[in-house]
């Protein structure tokens, strides 16, 4: 990362990038392997007998023994892991005991609901969180700063499922401002042809504006709730990045030159703060997956989180491990993406690469 290697011309650049890509790929592969080991081991310690889960407890002993061998349970642990690895890599997560379908199909069916919710939430969180953070930094120590701080503290301290219940109670049951649990009213369910699985997108593309409004009315409460929690995090980080930037010398130079204050804040400083901010937003997008487990339960939202809780409550271990693995993989992916974006956006980091 010293200057001589950077200035060494383009000859060394390609191998260096290749080396970096290999290194990242190795790290990701290793982490993913670790995820697999963890889920595999969790699957082994469950008190549920996987054979009985397949055949039920009335089957004769001979059937039991056959399935026991079919599932590979007679082999040593490392061979079982090898089998598991091969299956997972070919997209086979086993069957759900509950829905009797392949886990991969089940997940593909429920995932768009979570994706849609998380995306609307992160939009809300970013659109509100960034200006609030900037505002708090500019008026550091004054009322605006305190208000943003308190809003953030509430976001860090309140249980999300409780706020969700209160939201349903106030805005749905009492005020009738929004639609209740679920993604869409039954009346509209068949007027939307599901293509992408993102109902907002599907209904808008088909020009079903009434259905679109209904979907919007359903999504707005859970998305605002999740968005509020991302906002708490994003505004706090924006504030600290902005404070950092506003203390830099280029800001003083700009002031001396007579650049208007709004331009200094929103153009000069925010542009520099935007680089680490992208990482923060990507991370909170990943964290929304976690928040969605509880939120989806409260709002009966038919997404990954609800699928996971349902499987948990019915001891459907294949489904639990499949969705845990998927969420872990998405988490790793988004982390990686935020790293890459960081190096793309920041010329200083890019040069070091």
């Amino acid at each position, binding site marked *: 990362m010293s200057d001589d290697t950077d200035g060494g011309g383009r000859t060394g650049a390609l191998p260096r990038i290749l080396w970096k890509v290999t290194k990242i790929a190795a*790290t990701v592969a*290793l*982490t993913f392997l*670790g*995820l697999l*080991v*963890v*889920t595999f081991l*969790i*699957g082994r*310690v*469950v*008190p549920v007998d996987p054979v009985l889960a397949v055949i039920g407890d009335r089957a004769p002993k001979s059937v039991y023994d056959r399935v026991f061998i079919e599932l590979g349970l007679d082999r040593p642990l490392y061979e079982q892991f090898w089998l598991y690895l091969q299956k997972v890599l070919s997209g086979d997560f086993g069957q759900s005991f509950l829905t009797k379908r392949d886990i991969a199909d089940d997940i593909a069916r429920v995932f768009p609901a979570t994706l849609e919710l998380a995306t609307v939430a992160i939009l809300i969180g970013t659109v509100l969180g960034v200006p609030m953070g900037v505002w708090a930094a500019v008026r550091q120590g004054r009322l605006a700063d305190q208000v943003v701080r308190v809003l953030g*503290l*509430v976001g*860090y*301290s*309140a*249980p*999300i*499922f*409780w*706020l969700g*219940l*209160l939201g*349903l*109670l106030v805005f749905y*049951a009492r005020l009738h401002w929004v639609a209740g649990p679920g993604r869409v009213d039954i009346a509209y369910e068949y007027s939307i042809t599901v293509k992408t699985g993102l109902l907002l997108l599907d209904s808008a593309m088909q020009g079903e504006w009434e259905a679109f409004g209904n979907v919007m009315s359903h999504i707005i409460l859970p998305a605002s709730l999740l968005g509020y929690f991302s906002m708490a995090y994003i505004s706090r980080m924006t504030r600290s990045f902005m*404070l950092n930037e506003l203390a830099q010398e280029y800001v003083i130079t700009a002031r001396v030159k007579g650049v208007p204050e709004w331009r200094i804040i929103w153009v000069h400083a925010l542009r520099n703060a935007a680089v680490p901010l992208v990482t923060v937003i990507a991370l909170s997008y*990943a*964290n929304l*997956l*976690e928040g969605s*487990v*509880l939120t989806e*339960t409260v709002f009966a939202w038919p997404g990954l989180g609800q699928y*996971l*809780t349902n499987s*948990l*409550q019915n*001891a459907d*271990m294949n489904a*639990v*491990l499949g969705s*845990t693995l998927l*969420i*872990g993989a998405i*988490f*790793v992916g988004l*982390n990686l993406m935020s790293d890459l974006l960081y190096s793309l956006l920041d010329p200083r980091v890019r040069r070091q690469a």
Partner: protein
Amino acid sequence: MSSLSRRDWLLSDQPASRRQARLGQAYRTWLSFRSNWLAMVGLAIVLALILVALFADVIAPYDPVLGGDLRTERFLPLFSEGHIFGTDDLARDIFSRIVHGSRLTLMVVVLVAVIATPIGLLVGTTSGYFGGWVDTVLMRLTDIFLAFPRLILALAFVAALGPGIENAIIAIAITSWPPYARLARAETLTIRDSDYINAARLQGASSARILWGHVTPLCLSSVVIRVTLDMAGIILTAAGLGFLGLGAQPPQPEWGAMIAAGRRFLIDQWWVATVPGIAIFIVSLGFNLLGDGLRDVLDPKARK
């Protein structure tokens, strides 16, 4: 000794003994902590939680598990006579259940801290001190645990271990240590080549002795701050597990499980689910404020 002279003794610039210097340092820290009123509010909330948990039997007017008369005392509203927070569907006094629930909350926080902190310290200091392949292996392991969102991993562990508050505690502890390990490693890296460590090594101290006696104490303060800041998260995770029916089981008066039980009556008897939520909110707010205050006082690097 009058109070004024005691203060002078504590704040003396020329302490006569090591004890005086230490007490003086602690007093200065306390003074700077005291000037932060939000942190004091946090401290008050946490102290109140501890007191309520200790004296739950004295404070709670009713039994937390056994209800009253099912014909006349179900769903009494807030501020009813004798039931300040009303009663739930089994005619149990909600105030008494909240008071007894504080014990479960405190137990979760304390046990998770007691289990996760040593694991994090051990992994982090070992990794930082030895470096090389030990470091690589341990940090990869840490990264793998960090690669799962915390609640999801805890859910998977609870699914494997079976529901219940003990298993919830184990699951949360297993998912809590990685950030502490990272932190302890970073601290260890900054001190492992310092002269006093070398001196200890030259005197023939074993690695275990250096790690435990000379490295760990220096990592402790930053890890403790981090643990305090995490406590709100631990409470929320435990409440979330309780809400999903995977943590404390009924009839235990765990706050998250109480919200889940009150959910069925949300529209008409809204207080049954609302009051436990307020309790969770206040306690985790208290830990957040306390953690922020501690960080401002004890961690000069975070002070800007």
